[in-house]
C-alpha cells in the first residue's frame, strides 16, 4: 500500500515537472526595438519616461559610464558585472522567460554570444547615429564592437636590451621551457577562442610558414594542422596556467628573477607596471603574431523594458564623455574619433595587424574540438 502511495506521489511530481522540461522550446514574444525613427530629443524624452536602466557588463568601469550618463540625462542606471558563462546563462534564461531584466548588455566571448544570444534574438545590435560612417573596419560593425582588447606576449625585460622574442616557435624551445604563462583557457573563454582561431586554415598556414622561417624546414605534422601542432608544443614545453592576468603580470614582471619569462596577458596590465615596479615589455611584431585581440560587444536586450534609454546609453558610450573611463592603455575603440588612445600611440588597426582577431563564427564552430584537444594533452 505504502509503495503504491509513494509511486503515485512520485508520478504527480513528475507531472509537475513536465512544464519545466517544455520550457526550452517556448517562443519569446520579445518586444521588438521600435522601428519608428525618432528625433534625438524625442528619444531622450522617451528614455526619461522609462525609469531605471539596467546594464549587464563584463567590466567594472561600465559603472562610470553609468554615473556620467545619470549626471547628464537624470536617468538612473543599475550596473551588474558578470563573468562570461554567467552572462550567457543569465541573459538567455531571462530572455527565454521574457523577464524584465537587462536593457543593455556589454559582453565578450563571441563564440557563445553569437549562437546563444544573437541568433536567438535574445539581444540585438544597435548602431547609434553618432558612429555610423566612423567605424574603422567592417569587422567591428557586425555585431557592433564596443571595444577591442589586445592580449600580447609580454616579457620580463630586466636583463635584456633587445626584444628576445621574434617568432612564436621560440616558445617551444628549451630556453623558454616553463617560461610561458597564461590564464587557463578553460576559465577564460577568450583565451580558448584564441586557440580556436589559430587552428583555422589561414592562421595554421601562417604558423607553418613561421616554422619554416625559424627552422629552415617544413613542419612535420602529428596533428590536424600547424595551429594544433603549436598548441601541443607550448603545452608540452611546460607552460604555466595562471589564475588571473593581474597575477600573471606580477609573476612575469617581478624583478630579480633573472631568467626567461613571458606571459600572454592583457595589455592593460602594463598600466600599473611602473607603480608596481614590474619589468615588462610587450613583444611587438612577432612572427606570425604577437598575441591576440578580442572584442567586447554591446547590445540592446531583446525584451528591454527601457529600449530608448538603452539606445541612448549606447550612443552615450560612444561619445568622448562616455568613453572616458576606457580611454586607457589596453582598450581600443573601433570608432575613428575615439581611437586616439591617451596612453598609447597605437590604434585598434595597428594592433589588429599584428594580432589574431577573434572571429566568433569560426570560434563557435571549432571551439569544442579545440577544448577537447587541449584537455587531451596531458
Amino acid at each position: 500500500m505504502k509503495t503504491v502511495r509513494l509511486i503515485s506521489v512520485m508520478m504527480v511530481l513528475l507531472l509537475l515537472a513536465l512544464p519545466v522540461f517544455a520550457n526550452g522550446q517556448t517562443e519569446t514574444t520579445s518586444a521588438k526595438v521600435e522601428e519608428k525613427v525618432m528625433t534625438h530629443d524625442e528619444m531622450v524624452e522617451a528614455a526619461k519616461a522609462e525609469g531605471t536602466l539596467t546594464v549587464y557588463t563584463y567590466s567594472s568601469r561600465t559603472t562610470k559610464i553609468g554615473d556620467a550618463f545619470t549626471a547628464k540625462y537624470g536617468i538612473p542606471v543599475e550596473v551588474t558585472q558578470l563573468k562570461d558563462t554567467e552572462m550567457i546563462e543569465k541573459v538567455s534564461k531571462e530572455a527565454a522567460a521574457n523577464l524584465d531584466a537587462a536593457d543593455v548588455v556589454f559582453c565578450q566571448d563571441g563564440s557563445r554570444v553569437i549562437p546563444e544570444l544573437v541568433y536567438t534574438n535574445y539581444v540585438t545590435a544597435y548602431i547609434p547615429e553618432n558612429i555610423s560612417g566612423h567605424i574603422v573596419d567592417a569587422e567591428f560593425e557586425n555585431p557592433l564592437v564596443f571595444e577591442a582588447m589586445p592580449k600580447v606576449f609580454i616579457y620580463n625585460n630586466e636583463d635584456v636590451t633587445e626584444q628576445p622574442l621574434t617568432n612564436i616557435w621560440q616558445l617551444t624551445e628549451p630556453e623558454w621551457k616553463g617560461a610561458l604563462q597564461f590564464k587557463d583557457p578553460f576559465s577564460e573563454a577568450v583565451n580558448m577562442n584564441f586557440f580556436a582561431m589559430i587552428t583555422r586554415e589561414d592562421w595554421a598556414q601562417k604558423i607553418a610558414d613561421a616554422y619554416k622561417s625559424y627552422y629552415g624546414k617544413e613542419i612535420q605534422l602529428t596533428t590536424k594542422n600547424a595551429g594544433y601542432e603549436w598548441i601541443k608544443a607550448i603545452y608540452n614545453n611546460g607552460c604555466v596556467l595562471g589564475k588571473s592576468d593581474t597575477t600573471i603580470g606580477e609573476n612575469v614582471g617581478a624583478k630579480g628573477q633573472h631568467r626567461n619569462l613571458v606571459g600572454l596577458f592583457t595589455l592593460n596590465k602594463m598600466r600599473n607596471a611602473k607603480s608596481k615596479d614590474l619589468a615588462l615589455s610587450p613583444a611587438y611584431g612577432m612572427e606570425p603574431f604577437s598575441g591576440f585581440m578580442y572584442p567586447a560587444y554591446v547590445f540592446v536586450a531583446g525584451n528591454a523594458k527601457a529600449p530608448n534609454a538603452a539606445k541612448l546609453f549606447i550612443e552615450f558610450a560612444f561619445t568622448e564623455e562616455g568613453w572616458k573611463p576606457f580611454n586607457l592603455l589596453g582598450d581600443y575603440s573601433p570608432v575613428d574619433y575615439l581611437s586616439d588612445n591617451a596612453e598609447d600611440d597605437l590604434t585598434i588597426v595597428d594592433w589588429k595587424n599584428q594580432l589574431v582577431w577573434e572571429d566568433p563564427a569560426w570560434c563557435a564552430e571549432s571551439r569544442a574540438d579545440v577544448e577537447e584537444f587541449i584537455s587531451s594533452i596531458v
Partner: protein
Amino acid sequence: MIKKQLYRFYKFIKKPYNVILSVLLIVLGYLTLFPMLTMIKDTFTVHVSESMRLKQAAGTFTLNHWLKVLFDPSSLSVFYKPFLNSLVTSLGACLVALVFGGVFSWLITRTNIRWKKALSSLFIFPYIMPSWTLALAWFNVFKNSVVGGVPGTFQALTGIEPPNWFAYGAFPIALVTGLHYAPFAYIMIGGVLRNMDANLEEAAMMLKTKRNRIVRKITIPMILPAVLSTFLLVFSSAMSSFAVPQFLGLPVRYQVLTTQLYRTLNGINPGQGYCIAMIMILLSVGILAFNQRMVGTRKNYTTVTGKSSNISLVNLKKARNVISVIALILIVIVSILPLVSFALESVILRPGDYSPSNFTLQFWIGTAEENSIANNEAGLLRNPNLWKALWNSLKLSIICAITAGSLGFLAGYGIVRGRGTKLAKVVDNLAFFPYLMPSMAFSVIYLSMFSTRHGPIPALYGSFFLLVLIGTVKYMPFASRSGINSMLQLSNQIEEAGEIIGVSWPKRMGRLVIPIQKSSFISGYLLPFTSCMRELSLFVLLVTPQNRVLTTLLFQYNEKGWSQYSNGINLMIVIIVLVVNAVVNKVTGASIDKGIGG
C-alpha cells in the same frame, strides 16, 4: 474496503511525523528531484552551445556526452585521470584528517595537556573558514619559481626552493584538505573518547593490563565506528571540494573531478560536465549508503549514559610542556595565521612589499578621491556598496539558517520517528541530495525552474525569496544531519510519556524535545549560517543588483585584481562568522561541532 482505507489514512495522518514526512516528500521532491532529473536529461541532449558544431538542433537526443566522458581516447584525460587524482587526494586527506584530528582529540580528552579550552576552540577554526584560505596561505609560503614572481616566504627566508611536488599538486592538496576537515575527526572521535563508557577501560586497568594493550584492545575498537564515519565524511567532502585543488593544482595542471567539472561547465560542453556530476553524485550516494549501513548496524547510538566516571588522564610528565607548545604552535599556524595574512594584505600598498612605508589604511578608510590606485573606489568602511552587501548577506544567511535549521530539525524528527518506513528513508535521502549537487549546476537549474510561472508556483526570479529558497534547500542537509543525530540520542520514551498523558504535539515539541536537545537544535542553525555567509557560486547567477551579497562584491574586487579589498572583505566574513559562532555559543551553549558530530 473504502472505510478501511480511510481508517488507514486517518491513522497515518494522525502521527505528526507522517505529516511532516509527507509534506517534505512533496516539497523536497520538487526542489531536489527535479533539478536532478533536469541534469540527467541534459546529459542526453544537445546543448545550445554545441548545436552549431554538431549541426543538430539544441535539445535533440544524443549519447555523445557519455561516450566522450567514458569511452573515447580523450576519456583518459577528461575523466579517468582526474578520477584517479580525486581518489588519491581524498584518501590522502582522510589520512591527514584522521591522524591530525585523532591524535589531537586524544591529547585533549585523555591527557593532561595544557590550555585545553583554547586549543579545543581554535582547532575548529579551519572548518569555519573557507577551505581555500589555507590553500592560499600554503601557496604564499611555499610557491617556487614555477609560477615566477616574488619568491614564496619559505624560499625568501631559507633560500631553499621547495620542489614542485611539495609546492603544488597531490601532496599539498591532500594535506590542506585534510587539515580543513580535521575538525570532523576531532569532533567525532573526541566525542566518543569523551563520552564512552569508561568502565571497560577501568576494568582492564584493575586487571593490570598494560596501557598500550588497553589502547589496542579496547580504546581503538571502541572508536572504530567514529573513525569510519569520519573517514566517509571527509572522503566525500574532499571529493567534492573545488577551491583547494583549483588553487594548488593549476600551476602544474593537476586536474581532479571537480576542477574538470568546472572546466566543462564553464567551457561550452555542459553536457559532459553534467555526466561528471552524475558520476560524482552516484559515488557519493554509494558512500552515503555504506555509511548508513554502518551506522545502522551500530544499534546502540546512545552516548549519554551517565555512568562513566572520570577516566584517569595520561600524564605526559616531562613532555607535557613540549607537547603543549608544539600543539599550540601547529594550531596557531593553521587557525590564526591565515587571518593575520588577510589583515596584512589589506593594508599594504604594493603586494609583496612589507616595509613600513608601504603600509596604508586607505583601503579601509580612504575616501574615493584618495584611492586613485584602485580606480577611486572608496575604502571598505566608507563604501555604501559594502554596507548594503553586508546587510544583504547577513539577512540572507540568518533567514536561510532559520528556515534550513528548522526544516532540518523537523526532518530529523520525522526521519528518526518514522525510522524503518520507506517514506522516512526516501525523505532522508532527498534531504541529503542537495549536498551532493554542484552549486553551479544547482543554481543554473533553479534559474530556469523559477524564471517562469509553473502552475501555482509564480516566477520567483529576481526576488530575495528565491535566494532564501536555494540557500535553504542547499544547506538543509547540514541541519537534517544534526537533527537526525540529536534525535537518535534522544530516547523515544520521553516523548511517548508525554503522548500517553495526552500532551499535544506542538507542546511535546516545544516543552520536551526542543528544550532537551536545545544545544544541538541551535547548532543545526550555525552550519547553514556559516556556509551561507561564504557562498558565492550558488548565488551569483540569482542575485540582482538590489540583493547583491558580500561574496559577489568580493568576486568583483578579485577580478579587478584589487587584492587589498578582497582580502579585507574576506577578513570581515571570517570575523563575522567567528563572532556569531562565539556569541551563540556563549548564550546558548550550542556550537558548530555539535552540529557535525551530534
